[in-house]
């Protein structure tokens, strides 16, 4: 079971109070994009063994969205951060680099 921190209300609780909503930091391809781009945006998701960035919602709490960085293999949660961002903040990346040296090379 994951223990997750909500940066919006400051509560740290177990995962049943939250709900995962899939991969984070997707770039939207809407009208005017090619079929391939649109398909990729709609359906193609990473399925990494290791570090993963996800969108979560504090379903049974404050109801707000945020991001979580976690490891899909060990279920280690690296941290959570604001939903109002396009990319993970540097302190989260530093922490992941600390815990999983070289993770970015193996992720590609």
């Amino acid at each position: 079971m994951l223990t997750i921190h909500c940066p919006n209300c400051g509560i740290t609780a177990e995962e049943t109070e939250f709900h995962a909503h899939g991969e984070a930091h997707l770039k939207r391809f809407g009208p005017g994009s090619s079929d391939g781009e649109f398909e990729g945006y709609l359906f193609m998701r990473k399925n990494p063994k290791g570090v993963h960035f996800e969108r979560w919602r504090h379903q049974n709490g404050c109801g707000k969205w945020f991001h979580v960085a976690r490891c899909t293999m060990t279920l280690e949660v690296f941290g959570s951060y604001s939903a109002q961002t396009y990319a993970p903040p540097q302190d989260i990346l530093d922490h992941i680099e600390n815990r999983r040296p070289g993770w970015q090379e193996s992720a590609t």
Partner: protein
Amino acid sequence: MSEPVTALRGATDAAGIVQIREIGPRGMITLRGDLSDKATIKAAVAAGGVNVPEVRHCNTEGESGIAWMSPDEVLIMCPYAEVHARIADLRTKLAKQHSLAVNVSDARALFSVTGPHAREVMAKLSPVDLHVDAFTPGMFRRTRLAQVPAAFWMPQEQTFNIVCFRSVAVYVYDVLKVAAQPGSEVGHF
């Protein structure tokens, strides 16, 4: 005006290790807006009769009070008969603010759980640290009660007040009764 009817018509149960009571009707107003804005705070204080609480806390005084629900939402409580007047006043005062005030009195059910085992009964149903040092009177927690969303606070030690959706009032009442079955004391707190 017609008589207000609560979801369970004030059902009570004292057969278990705590006393469960449906209380209410209670006037409840959901107010969404910028909680750092002075005019919003002032209007909320006027409607709730108490100060706007800190994050994850609530201030209550009898039937009135304000509870912190999320970074842009508070729940204002007041006597049921006064809710229309208070919401009208709130809307007038916040006419120029980007805000939303809705009367949710009849969309909610309110329970009280009382007794020396109250913490235990609540801890069986929600994923919240209810240790005496971790959850104290004055705090407010939105969470789940078994399978449904609920929020609760402690007006005083050994008493919990629970707010849930009216549509799940029967479920909450029943699940509280199960958690409070005679002989089901855990003795953890």
